[in-house]
């Protein structure tokens, strides 16, 4: 097992310079998730308009894998439809389990494939994606009549 397989340059770049870092307005969908086994946490905010993720921000604390995965996730879903974002989450989770992702283009996210060889770290990579799935499920329900 080689550390360089895990710590790919693109991952470390996102870790050092997380994209979409910060807060949206309070009326955005907000999901706070912890990883209770290790103390990592993320606060993810999503703005969904017309079935599309029009904006997304996050803050949190965690290891390189958890923060980089969160940052890359926000870039990957911004501008996508809710269905596309959820399909991407599904594909990403399959990537972590070393299963076939089908014909979905994961782009830069492929760099996280190395995590699947470090089973203890898969939970780190999945935290932000779980937050996103939960947030989009909320966004799918009409908030006000």
């Amino acid at each position, binding site marked *: 097992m080689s550390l360089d397989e895990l*710590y790919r340059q693109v991952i470390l770049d996102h870790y050092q310079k997380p994209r979409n870092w910060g807060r949206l307005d309070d009326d955005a969908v907000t999901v706070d998730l912890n990883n209770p086994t*290790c*103390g*990592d946490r993320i606060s993810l905010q999503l703005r969904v308009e017309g079935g599309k993720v029009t904006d997304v921000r996050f803050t949190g*604390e965690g*290891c*390189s894998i958890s923060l980089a995965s969160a940052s890359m996730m926000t870039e990957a879903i911004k501008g996508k439809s809710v269905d596309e974002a959820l399909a991407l989450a599904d594909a990403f989770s399959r990537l972590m389990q070393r299963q076939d992702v089908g014909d979905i283009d994961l782009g830069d996210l492929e760099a996280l494939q190395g995590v699947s060889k470090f089973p203890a*770290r898969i939970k780190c990579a999945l935290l932000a994606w779980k937050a996103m799935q939960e947030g989009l499920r909320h966004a799918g329900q009409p908030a006000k009549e």
Partner: protein
Amino acid sequence: MNVKEIRKLFPILHQEVNGHPLVYLDSAATSQKPLPVIEAVERYYREYNSNVHRGVHTLGTKATEAYEGAREKVARFLNAPDSAQIIFTRGTTSALNLVAWSYARRVLREGDEIVITPMEHHSNLIPWQQAAKATGATLKYVPLRPDGTIAVEDFAQTVTERTKIVAVTHVSNVLGTINPIKTFAAIAHEKGAVIVVDGAQSAPHMKVDVQDLDVDFYAFSGHKMCAPTGIGVLYGKRHLLEQMEPVEFGGEMIDTVELYDSTWKEIPWKFEGGTPIIAGAIGLAAAIDFLESVGLDAIRAHEEQLARYALERLRAIDGVTVYGPEERAGLVTFNVEGIHPHDVATVLDSRGIAVRAGHHCAQPLMRWLGVTATARASFYLYNTEEEIDKLADALQYAKEYFHNVLG
């Protein structure tokens, strides 16, 4: 103490992990098991596996003798007055929960106090939160000093006439702090409270005499002291155990069963409903024999030396912060500046070194330290100074690796 000879008895230590000889520095999570323990469990299953307390047949008698013999061994190990005061449980967590359910909820009234400390493992914290919520009692914390120890004066001030229960760990699983339990017990008793001690990190590593400490309850786990998982112990003073109702009802624990009511056996059996953890108890007895053959004082001295050496080596590395007091049990919790403990642990693992990374089931203590997570190296009788050298070298390597890749 001949560590080289001791290591020969631990088959698991003689393997390579990720191309490097295994350096196991996670014994505070669970210890490795020596051949005498593995063989004792195997012998039970191969030669006399049988249920206890019921069979008239020969194997049943043998199994019962081994199981009750284990209880007597534990009683001697803790210097308990009577083996009836030794209850076998699933581990420290279930032992502490038994006290919180069966003793605490019966005696606590609204306005009573439970005193605990910020260094408790979740297993000696959440049961008391729940007991407080259920009874209207108040949970109070003894403050910690900046070095992670508790001042006796602070303890004495926190415990009042309204305190019914004091629950405190003997040794902190994060800081390594060794609490002055005998002094704490005397103060608790002066105020009319009972003291419950979490011995998960002390029983494996130092001589414990429950009569000398004068504790009311003392809990520990087998798996942290060379025994199998799934076996633990609750020691309690007789008059307290006799007041307590069982929390699990069923076979084994009954005296007479009528259609609409039943009566229980005496202690300890009334707390051991169902087929007990026979193989676990037999393994625990073998572990006690093994640890006593080495000597608990020798083990403590060895670990004290390892902790001192680890402190010296880790503090010499620029950017490494070590938490906890000078005087400590055999563990060192630390962080490396700019590298998350998970990343530290992954780099160490790539060199065959096993450490724990995370919050160590002590979230309030992490908040007190002002961190979300830490890495921890913990030692046992089979660890060596050479292994600590490897840890220090690997931490240096981790720093350089991240320095290079992060640019």
